[in-house]
């Protein structure tokens, strides 16, 4: 079926949005790097680099890049039940591994790669166009996420050093440490992480 020009236009890549996303990824990668997390930093720099590479590749042809669409997944009830049970078993088993251990690392990286393949960042889902976000909505939600990011950064910079936790100025990571110290806490957090991934993947 032929899509309307308006629908196709709404899916075109906006250079301003891309620049903002690249800047956020580079900033996050920089601070993660100087906080002693080089692998995480590489992931963020890699994502930023892929967008820059993509922009450079399309610059000569067309400044406004259109993103290809793929069909959304429509899992059957049986498949969905098996997937939910699979995630629960995964979270219970992997939750038993110690944080930052190699078994935990592999157990997180493998499903993350799988979800990235399913999500196919180079494409978007076909279907009805989501509602347009007005200026009030943009300002409201941007303010919340910006405030959260700035407060997290403030707490990080108020630590004795970037790699030393502070009781007086706890970051989100420091606050979640006691929860993630237990098997149950890690299991719940892994279920939440997987659920968030599923929520995002079909957007």
């Amino acid at each position: 079926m032929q899509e309307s020009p308006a629908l196709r236009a709404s899916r075109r890549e906006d250079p301003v949005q891309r620049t903002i996303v690249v800047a956020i990824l580079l900033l996050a990668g920089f601070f993660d790097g100087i906080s002693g997390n080089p692998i995480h930093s590489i992931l963020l720099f890699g994502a930023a680099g892929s967008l820059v590479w993509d922009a450079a590749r399309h610059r000569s042809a067309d400044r406004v890049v259109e993103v290809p669409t793929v069909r959304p997944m429509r899992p059957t009830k049986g498949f969905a039940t098996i997937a939910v049970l699979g995630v629960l078993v995964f979270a219970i088993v992997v939750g038993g591994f110690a944080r930052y251990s190699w078994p935990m690392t592999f157990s997180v990286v493998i499903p993350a790669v799988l979800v990235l393949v399913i999500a196919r960042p180079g494409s978007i889902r076909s279907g009805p166009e989501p509602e347009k976000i007005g200026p009030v909505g943009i300002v409201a939600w941007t303010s919340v996420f910006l405030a959260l990011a700035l407060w997290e950064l403030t707490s990080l910079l108020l630590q004795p050093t970037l790699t030393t936790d502070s009781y007086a100025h706890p970051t989100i990571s420091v606050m979640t440490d006691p929860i993630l110290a237990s098997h149950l806490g890690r299991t719940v957090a892994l279920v939440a992480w997987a659920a968030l991934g599923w929520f995002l993947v079909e957007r």
Partner: protein
Amino acid sequence: MTSHDFTIAVYLLIVAIGVGLEIRSSSERSRIPSLGAVFSRVMRTRSGRVGIMAGWVWLGLHFFAR
């Protein structure tokens, strides 16, 4: 109020505002979209999709992986 309490109070305030926006979005006449609608819109573009999914992977790595 100690620095510790104040830091946590600000985090809670930001979360409360986010929850408030989400509740407000459920009203039909509201000009505030739901968080799901915002993500759906942002992920209509390649950069939005890459940025959001990279953020999700980073969350898993940051809290669990080496």
